[in-house]
């Protein structure tokens, strides 16, 4: 009982930068912290995590916390399945309750074409051993009794892709748990430390310049999501990425009446009810690029209109908050992960709207890459090189709006 009221410090922030680190991770979000966490397994402790704001202030703290693995390509499905499996054990691994609820995930289909694509996804998923199935409107109604499934809507529901292992998790807890583990493993976390430049000599980054001084680095990791291009430019390279805002909002808490995640690509919404009873809702990215994280009115209008078609009960619910985050979109809606043309500069980028889902597996794979110098097989299809060899991994149908 006393433990509940005891204030425990989970980690201490480092104050002074050392002159050199074996590994410098740019970005203190879920990917950067997960990498530091998994570097412990390889006995690499001389690690600095540089974060320009507070940890988890970017996409890690702005996503809608949905986890799933029902992607369209075998490469993608395999990768995200490994991530969901790591998430399943992450709470025990970190000794921290992440409130992971595998409540199930429904992707609604409103057309014959959508039903066809979902049948295709279900088959790909099942070949990879992922629980994923096409269901009809009656089963949809059973799983979400409070949702309006009637035929007299703008987009009648013809069926859904049902993915039982999908669900929601407490995103801040993931960040905190990973930060504690990274700290316990000896990594230094430097919040409010902005990278201002990278010094490159030939095929190597030698020095990372920050607003708190310069440091030498053995390996540099770019885990900055929406800001990946900005960091890449400092390293004198380009990425096939554009930065867009993605917006979400949350209602006041109401009585629990939805215990699955509901997604509709056609209606551009994904909806879940949190443990506190709030409805968390998100939408599609804005088509134009921007680094300004502010909501738009047309987002709120479209999102609430579509949500009310599915859940008319929410008509009087008030919105508590709305926010926007940056998404680093790649041309094929798959991530860009691993080596670049610079020998000691690796990236975790191109995460679009699906980065948080992949945090543990990205950490594990990047840690292995740093420790061994070899690209793990699981992430080989996501190499930056694929854009030069035209071997794209198209997740357009399964990743764009489908969270």
């Amino acid at each position, binding site marked *: 009982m006393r433990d509940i009221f005891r204030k425990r410090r989970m980690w201490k922030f480092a104050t002074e930068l050392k002159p050199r680190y074996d590994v410098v991770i740019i970005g203190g979000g879920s990917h950067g912290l997960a990498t530091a966490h998994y570097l412990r397994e390889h006995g690499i402790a001389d690690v600095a995590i540089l974060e320009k704001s507070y940890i988890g202030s970017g996409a890690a703290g702005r996503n809608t916390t949905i986890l799933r693995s029902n992607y369209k390509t075998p490469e993608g499905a395999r990768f995200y399945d490994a991530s969901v499996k790591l998430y399943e054990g992450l709470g025990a691994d970190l000794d921290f309750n992440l409130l992971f609820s595998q409540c199930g995930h429904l992707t609604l289909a409103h057309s014959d074409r959508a039903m066809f694509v979902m049948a295709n996804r279900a088959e790909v998923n099942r070949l990879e051993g992922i629980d994923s199935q096409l269901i009809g409107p009656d089963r949809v109604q059973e799983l979400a009794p409070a949702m309006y499934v009637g035929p007299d809507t703008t987009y009648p529901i013809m069926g859904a892709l049902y993915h039982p292992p999908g669900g929601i998790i407490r995103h801040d807890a993931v960040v905190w748990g990973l930060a504690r583990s990274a700290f316990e493993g000896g990594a230094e976390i430097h919040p409010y430390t902005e990278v201002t430049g990278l010094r490159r000599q030939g095929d190597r980054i030698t020095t990372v310049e920050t607003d708190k001084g310069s440091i030498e680095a053995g390996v540099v990791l770019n885990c900055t999501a929406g800001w990946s291009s900005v960091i890449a430019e400092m390293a004198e390279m380009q990425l096939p990425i554009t930065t867009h805002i993605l917006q979400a909002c949350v209602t006041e808490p109401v009585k629990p009446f939805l215990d699955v995640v509901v997604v509709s690509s056609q209606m551009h919404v994904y909806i879940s009810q949190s443990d506190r009873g709030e409805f968390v809702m998100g939408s599609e990215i804005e088509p134009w*690029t921007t680094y300004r994280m502010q909501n738009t009115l047309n987002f709120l209008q479209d999102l609430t209109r579509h949500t009310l078609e599915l859940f008319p009960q929410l008509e009087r619910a008030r919105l508590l908050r709305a926010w926007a985050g940056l998404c680093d979109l790649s041309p094929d809606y798959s991530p860009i992960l691993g080596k670049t043309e610079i020998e000691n500069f690796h990236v975790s980028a191109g995460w679009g709207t699906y980065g948080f889902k992949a945090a543990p597996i990205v950490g594990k794979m990047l840690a292995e890459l740093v420790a061994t110098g070899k690209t793990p097989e699981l992430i080989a299809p996501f190499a930056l090189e694929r854009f030069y060899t035209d071997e794209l991994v198209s997740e357009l149908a399964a990743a764009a709006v489908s969270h």
Partner: protein
Amino acid sequence: MSFVLDCPNCGSREVTDFGFGGEVTTRPTGRPEFKELNRYVYFRDNKAGVQREWWVHRAGCGEWFLAERDTRTNEVIWTARPADAPPARAAAASEGAPR
């Protein structure tokens, strides 16, 4: 934050009226290598700052035009038909060139 763009034909309209055509890129000339072509097709500066970009007035006259916008604030600095656009600054031009 939403913003307003000046269509050269129709005047000020909300951004939802327009289609975004992406940042202005430099098309390779002559007989480029595959690598250079792929760089042109996929790779972008994705600048956090003033960016020269294409827009189309999709819900209006259908005209394609250029704009310069600060992607950090969404402030639109100017819009113009390609023929009337101010020349790209020397710095911007060299940054846009393939590396």
